[in-house]
């Protein structure tokens, strides 16, 4: 039963990684760049939601929506100001810029919201008489599952299905796939590559806001560096699953979350991250393109 409980925790953490990894993987697939500032967009989303709910007393769903709107705009502005001028530059220049944007966001958060850790409220509760319940028990109280866990896993599934539908059935979604394969050919079809990249950043950043709220609901401490470690883990998850692949981000995220929690439980929390990255190294040795990554093959 304890194993089951670890597994559920792992799936929940993994779902958060997967949602963040989707942002990395979509941006990589289309703009061929690693947006290292993505983790910090999560942090901004969490702060927006935190202040909207605790300082302005807005209902939590409005807070989440507001966070999504702010992050969407932020993502598009970052792309327009920091990355778009570097479209023709070397990938190293873009990478360094992304790291710069990451520090810029962290330090802006420090200025705006101070370094004091905020305790994030748990929205996912059900009032029961005078008390509020944060979860439910199964098997005579042997297995406790919080509502946050349920919502997180469901949110991840819904987002996955929605994105799969979007990229497979809409004109914009198909244009994204076309751009990720060949930008020049996409332009010859009349696809505006700049708009497509901008939309990709918008979607990734809106997802980051959702991930931020879910992350802070499960692990309720919020500070300007909250986003950096989950950001790196989610990036790892994206590489693990095969960067550029949407199902890969889901698989990589879930596996990473489960491995991390199980390693923490059975090997030790100090070695938790070491185990996660050791697994990544082994996977990349065997499958360099990641679990679901496509091998580059050219036909002449």
């Amino acid at each position, binding site marked *: 039963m304890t194993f089951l409980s670890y597994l559920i925790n792992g799936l929940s953490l993994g779902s958060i990684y997967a949602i963040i990894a989707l942002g990395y993987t979509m941006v990589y697939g289309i703009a061929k760049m690693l947006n290292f500032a993505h983790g910090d967009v999560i942090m901004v989303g969490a702060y927006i939601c935190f202040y909207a709910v605790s300082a302005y007393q807005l209902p939590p769903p409005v807070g989440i929506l507001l966070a999504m709107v702010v992050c969407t705009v932020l993502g598009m502005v970052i792309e327009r100001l920091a990355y778009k001028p570097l479209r023709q530059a070397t990938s190293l220049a873009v990478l360094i810029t992304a790291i710069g944007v990451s520090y810029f966001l962290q330090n802006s958060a420090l200025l705006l919201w101070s370094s004091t850790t905020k305790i994030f409220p748990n929205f996912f509760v059900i009032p029961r008489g005078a008390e509020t319940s944060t979860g439910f028990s199964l098997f005579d109280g042997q297995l406790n599952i919080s509502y946050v866990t349920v919502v997180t896993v469901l949110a991840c599934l819904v987002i996955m299905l929605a994105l799969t539908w979007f990229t497979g059935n809409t004109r914009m979604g198909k244009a994204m796939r*076309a751009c990720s394969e060949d930008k020049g050919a996409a332009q010859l*079809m009349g696809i505006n590559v700049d708009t497509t990249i901008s939309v990709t950043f918008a979607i990734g950043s809106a997802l980051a806001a959702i991930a931020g709220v879910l992350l802070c609901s499960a692990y309720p401490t919020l500070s300007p560096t909250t986003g950096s470690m989950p950001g790196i883990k989610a990036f790892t998850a994206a590489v693990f699953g095969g960067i550029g692949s949407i199902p890969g981000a889901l698989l990589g995220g879930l596996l990473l979350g489960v491995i991390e929690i199980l390693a923490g439980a059975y090997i030790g929390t100090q070695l938790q991250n070491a185990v996660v990255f050791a697994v990544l190294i082994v996977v990349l040795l065997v499958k360099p393109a990641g679990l679901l990554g496509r091998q580059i093959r050219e036909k002449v």
Partner: protein
Amino acid sequence: MAMLEVNNINVYYGAIHAIKDISFCVEQGEIVTLIGANGAGKTTTLQTISGLLRSQTGSIVFEGQNISSTAAHKLVSHGLAQVPEGRRIFLQMTVEENLEMGAFTQPNAGIPQDLEMVFEQFPRLKERRRQVAGTLSGGEQQMLAMGRALMSHPKLLMLDEPSMGLAPILVEQIFEIIRNLNQNGSTILLVEQNAQMALSIAHRGYVLETGKVVTTGSGAELIQSPEIKRAYLGG
């Protein structure tokens, strides 16, 4: 006035002067071919017309409108379509999705009809409409690339090396299709290394050498010219 007028364009790749003051024109209803050896500047010229590259000088006028600084993605709605060198179809997408991408600038309502039009022209594509394009043979991929370009109802179709990498029998077939398209009213600008085939269907041709136009004439004239025979037709 010609449908397409290219006037004194110069294109550079960094310090390399790839296109040196090229001028030519394409009249409505014509097949015009640009022939020349590897590196003569044929592909560069097409990419400059379609907006993927920029000329430093001169102008490109399409139906009376200067398009030399128009963004590549906007030219499709002007009526220009390009079948790029190496086909560059979307290998991970299905045949039908590739064709839909060709119709990106068209209203949704007309797409099923246009698909049928392309399938009539290329029945092989209909059989394989749900197949991922990367699994097609080279000839089928070329047909897909041409079908994809036709989906935008181009006034001018630009083809870059459609015969490249294809077996001789397929080359014949592709050129037959090009001739048919032209007879049905499409204006065609054809870039080819296979000078013999290109000149045999073209109304007029321009011979490019190291970024310059060196000779021009009707297809029949050029195919007979001893100079062309020696340099490009192997005899």
